[in-house]
């Protein structure tokens, strides 16, 4: 709980964060930037869980526990994605989206 800050303000921030992530995922041309956008989405939900837990249901810790698991899984996901990107980079020397379009339609 932060004194002077209501839950609406924080949830507005997380919603904005979420949509920045979705926008970035769609518009970015670089695989690493897309990965960062996905992280933004995941972090928006992490903050959501913690804030909802703290403001609305402070007697249980379900949201906080959930957020720890999300962080751990997100780390695993990023590691795997980066390793695949590195493998791709070894073959085509590029991490641009326009270069991974050999399969289409």
């Amino acid at each position, binding site marked *: 709980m932060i004194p002077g800050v209501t839950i609406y303000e924080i949830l507005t921030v997380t919603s904005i964060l*979420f949509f920045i*992530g*979705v926008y970035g*995922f769609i518009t970015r041309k670089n*695989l690493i930037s*897309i*990965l960062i956008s*996905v992280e933004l*989405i*995941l972090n*928006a*939900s992490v903050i*959501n*869980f913690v804030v*909802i837990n703290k403001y*609305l*249901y402070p007697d*249980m810790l*379900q*949201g906080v*526990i*959930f957020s720890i*698991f*999300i962080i751990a*899984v997100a780390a*695993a*996901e990023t590691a*795997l*994605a980066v390793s*695949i*990107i590195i*493998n*791709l980079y070894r*073959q*085509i020397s590029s991490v641009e989206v326009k270069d*991974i379009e*050999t*399969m*289409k*339609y």
Partner: protein
Amino acid sequence: MTIDSFLIMRHEILLLAIILLLVAGEIFIPENKKNSMVHLAIFLFGLHTVIGFLPIEEDSMFGGSFHTNDLIHFFKSVLNVGVLILLLISADWLQEKIVSQNRGTEFFILMFSSLFGMYFMISAGDFLMFYLGLELSTLPVAALAAYNITKRISSESGIKFILSSALASGVSLFGMSMLYATSGSIYFNDIIEVIAPSNLTLLGAVLFFAGLAFKISLVPFHFWTADVYEGAPISIASYLSVISKGAAVFILMILLFTVLKPLIHAWENIVYSIALATMFIGNLFALRQQNMKRFLAFSSIAQAGFILLGLITGTQLGTATIVYFVLIYICSNLAAFGVVQSISLQTGKENMSDYEGLYRTNPNLSLVMMLALFSLAGIPPVAGFFGKFFLFTAAASEGYYLLVFFAVVNVIISLYYYLLVVRAMFLRKSDHPIPFFKNNLYMRLGLILTVIGILVLGLYSPLYDYIYELSSVFN
């Protein structure tokens, strides 16, 4: 809670033991005998499949996080059978291409980990366990999709899969946080009691649905499907299209029929429109495909649209027909992928035009492929017809006549492109047909199992009655 109560996790414990045994085998089996890893893994998993059919009692553990009942137990066995057939039809590929690079054991470990995640996903009793199961079932498959590390399209399909699955799980998590905000709990049983159709709950449910719709590759979320299937090794494409899709359909069904049941007036409209879009787009795009893997990818999108016809009902009949259809779909699609796998392994050819004149050189393979495609299309004597027929009956019994009409239109469209392949195999002549070859034991065994499934499952009605009886648990 005693040590005995862990026995309800028998599937999970056994599979974990197999994974650990394979790790030990990787360490202790010498380099020149690595071929035996494939036999060992198939043998152990076959044993696990057989043991999996033994009955189990209904119970829940870990404060309700993990629960099981007869239907869930049965579905885990169905997934086991699917994976076993899949291992049989990919054994050749593994021995020729993968074990020779000394990467055979990882394949099994990753695939079994993914199956392990699916067990937890379909047994989940809260959103945390569900999320962990979903991720554990998705991430190893991304690694497997990029398994041909020397091939560019394999890496491409891996990165496409992991990025879009990460987006889907992120969106799904955002939805879960909204459901948590309105209900105050992440446990399904607590949510059922307090859930009410408020705006925030609806938004949460829709976002959550989107995450699972990605796994099933329903239409607005299907863009990854064809690319990933084409680039990934064929075993992984069939795993994605059969096992992964089946498990996701099952958990989506459980959640819609139990937790989100009070919102049925909201989600039935969503499912209705998505079913229409999925069937039409899947079928129309399949018409123009030449590559067999892409063709099967779009056909599997269309099949997912048919499954939604059972999902829209929310009744016991719907549950039974979905489980029954998924069982048949596993057999028919694995047969089709098995033939594609064996031809691709022998000749490296994957295009529809390469199949011309196949009947003259390889009559048995052509017959298996024909049965599989007839079953997917739903032509009467084979099982696929009964699966589709029951799905349509379920939807019609709830009054969705227009939807059933469009589904039948789609069956006709799909018949056209399935018969294109059959025509290429049986009627066309080719100057350079695929030469005759003999499959080895595992591949033949796998294909025979699928053919038995296609021929018997539809006609053996006690099976459907049994599934119907089990399905009463969710209603």
